[in-house]
């Protein structure tokens, strides 16, 4: 750690990030940002199509293509290390790798996970063999080829950045044009096929985009890490929304920001590997999203889960309190409530403490007694359950995905209209459904319900 990281300078970082650090850095950062944009947009679709790991296979499979293109270039008397032939070679073997995975899973009993790992390692192994052969040739021009493995942005020229920009533009254009088709492909292949879309061709187009973007990212980020450009922004964007039209631009933005910042940071010191810095910046974006995103972030999920469990627990306490001791709303032993619900002693204490805090119950000498507010709350809970029951009976086929017993108010889920209808149906059913026995309790519950409704 004593090396490059030691002379870290916030001022320099700020200059770099605001494009004031010299022409070369500007070029590199702009190129990286374009790459991040393209990868994010394409990666979002690849993720939703379940192709995140296939992207990893493709990225590793590009290496033999790079080696072969270099050898062909040298053999034809060229310089070898020029952008377009290497890109073409990388795309060719990358695509071949993806096809090999599909072929193996189709003709044999080997599952896709094993097929992917196998193709990945074999293609990459073949690539390393080619690279070692190239080194053996001693052409003197093979030095730059090594950067394809770990990536290097420092050598990026204006032309390279322009090409990356063009690829980003191409990726965005394809995605915009085929947005509807890709969406169908990702969410419902069967439907897409039934509607007569050329599913295989669309799939091919998506894989093609993935391959091109990965190949374009090779020189900057390297074979080993370029897949991160695809998967991390997409994964991060997924935390923020469930809507594809939001996820795709968000992923593009996240990729752009991460790559931009990563390139900026790595420009600060010569020793900092650009690919790794870009991936780490993207990782930072991912961690922030995973923790803090309101839609599906860990914090939000945890908080909602906790609240729901508390809600359920309180409902149990309220019901136990209001109907516990043989129907008369007298005090109930705390231990009895906890025992009935399978709670540990500590959990029971916690739940009761929460009920006290909310002013719903009093505890006296190990017995729980509902307050006036607790009783009216209990009546609300009972009414909710009554209505849910009615809803389940009326709409049983579609109900299970809608019913939410622990919702605060049934109206929040179903809307006032449906609830009024349910209430009417309950009242209509009343005379037939309730013989004399136990009618008093039911009346009490219903009157309570009327009080809060």
């Amino acid at each position: 750690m004593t090396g490059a990281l030691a002379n870290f300078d916030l001022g320099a970082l700020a200059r770099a990030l605001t494009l004031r650090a010299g022409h070369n850095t500007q070029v590199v950062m702009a190129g990286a940002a374009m790459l991040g944009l393209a990868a994010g947009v394409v990666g979002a679709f690849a993720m939703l199509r379940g192709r995140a790991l296939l992207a990893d296979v493709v990225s590793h499979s590009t290496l033999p293509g790079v080696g072969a293109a270099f050898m062909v270039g040298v053999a034809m008397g060229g310089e070898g290390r020029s952008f377009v032939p290497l890109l073409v070679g990388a795309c060719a073997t990358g695509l071949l790798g993806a096809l090999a995975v599909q072929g193996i899973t189709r003709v044999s009993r080997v599952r896709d996970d094993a097929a992917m790992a196998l193709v990945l390692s074999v293609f990459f192994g073949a690539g390393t063999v080619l690279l070692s052969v190239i080194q053996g040739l001693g052409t003197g021009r093979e030095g730059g080829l090594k950067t394809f493995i770990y990536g290097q942005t420092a050598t990026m020229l204006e032309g390279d950045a322009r090409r990356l920009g063009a690829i980003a533009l191409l990726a965005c254009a394809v995605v915009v044009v085929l947005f509807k088709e890709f969406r169908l492909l990702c969410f419902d292949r069967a439907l897409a096929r039934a509607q007569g879309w050329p599913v295989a061709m669309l799939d091919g187009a998506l894989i093609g985009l993935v391959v091109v973007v990965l190949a374009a990212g090779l020189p900057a980020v390297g074979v080993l890490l370029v897949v991160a450009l695809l998967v991390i922004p997409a994964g991060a964007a997924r935390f923020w929304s469930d809507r594809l039209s939001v996820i795709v631009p968000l992923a593009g933005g996240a990729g752009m920001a991460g790559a931009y910042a990563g390139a900026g940071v790595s420009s600060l010191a010569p020793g900092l590997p650009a690919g790794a810095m870009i991936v780490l910046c993207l990782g930072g974006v991912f961690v922030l999203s995973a923790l803090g995103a309101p839609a599906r972030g860990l914090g939000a999920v945890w908080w909602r889960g906790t609240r729901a469990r508390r809600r359920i627990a309180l409902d149990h306490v309220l019901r136990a309190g209001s109907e516990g001791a043989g129907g008369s709303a007298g005090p109930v032993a705390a231990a009895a409530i906890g025992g009935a619900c399978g709670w540990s002693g500590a959990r029971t204490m916690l739940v009761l403490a929460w009920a006290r805090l909310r002013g719903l119950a009093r505890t006296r000498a190990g017995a729980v007694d509902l307050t006036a507010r607790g009783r009216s709350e209990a009546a609300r809970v009972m009414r909710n359950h009554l209505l849910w029951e009615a809803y389940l009976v009326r709409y049983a086929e579609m109900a299970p995905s809608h019913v939410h017993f622990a919702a605060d108010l049934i109206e929040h889920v179903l809307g006032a209209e449906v609830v009024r209808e349910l209430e009417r149906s309950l009242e209509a059913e009343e005379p037939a459904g309730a013989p004399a026995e136990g009618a008093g309790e039911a009346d009490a519950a219903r009157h309570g319900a009327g009080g809060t409704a």
Partner: protein
Amino acid sequence: MDVQRHRRAGAPRSLDALPEHSASSPLSIHALTVAYGRRPVLWNVDYDAPAGSLIAIVGPNGAGKSTLIRAALGLLRPASGKVEFWGRPYGEVRGRIGYVPQRESVDWDFPVSALDVVCMGRYGRIGWVRRVGRAHREAARACLSRVGLGDLGDRQISRLSGGQQQRVFIARALAQEADLYFMDEPFAGVDAATERAIVDVLRALRSEGRTVICVHHDVQSVREYFDAVILLNMRIVASGPVGEAFTRENLQRTYGGRLTLLDAAGEAMARGEVAPRGGHGA
């Protein structure tokens, strides 16, 4: 009114009623609520299984039938509630409880033979690290014969038909020699011969005084195969002996007002007939 309804459904609500019935019942569930994320899928389920009977759990798709079994077996953590077997927690009586998961829940390409799968039922008895001995192997082979697959023991499981695979699972349950079985859709997608073989096994288990609780999808055969029924749709609609609980009204309250698909079966049941079994093979 809801209190009334629950009483009729046979699920006691009052806390006072809790302790008296649990010790003898092979399975007693109290106030079980299970939530996926924040949405409960099972709400406040109370149930006591009668010993030595065949019990069907019936309900529409997504009603939480499998969830009920999985929560009872501790494969899911419930949000609240208590499950006891013969009045004791699951961990103490593990060896007396058998489980048959849905057939689709495992990878049938896995390289094991039918006999290997049946032997797995004995692993609880064998314990960690020790090999499967000859006695256990013989016991497993006997179980395989009981479901009519005695000569297919060495066949790789992917080369069995769907019905045979299901029978292997039943044989594995037999090998567990449990007193209480949970079976998740044992009749789903099996041929007539397998269905008969499974029914024979279930009846044999009952005659030995064991209890079997099945998730069952075919309303028409409930009356023929089972003694007791649990009608479930997120909460228990009704439960009890088939003759009492499996009424047209309760079915309607489980499957909803528009019971078109079940009407024919319902009428047959109302007349007290057994509904005719479909298919040419029966």
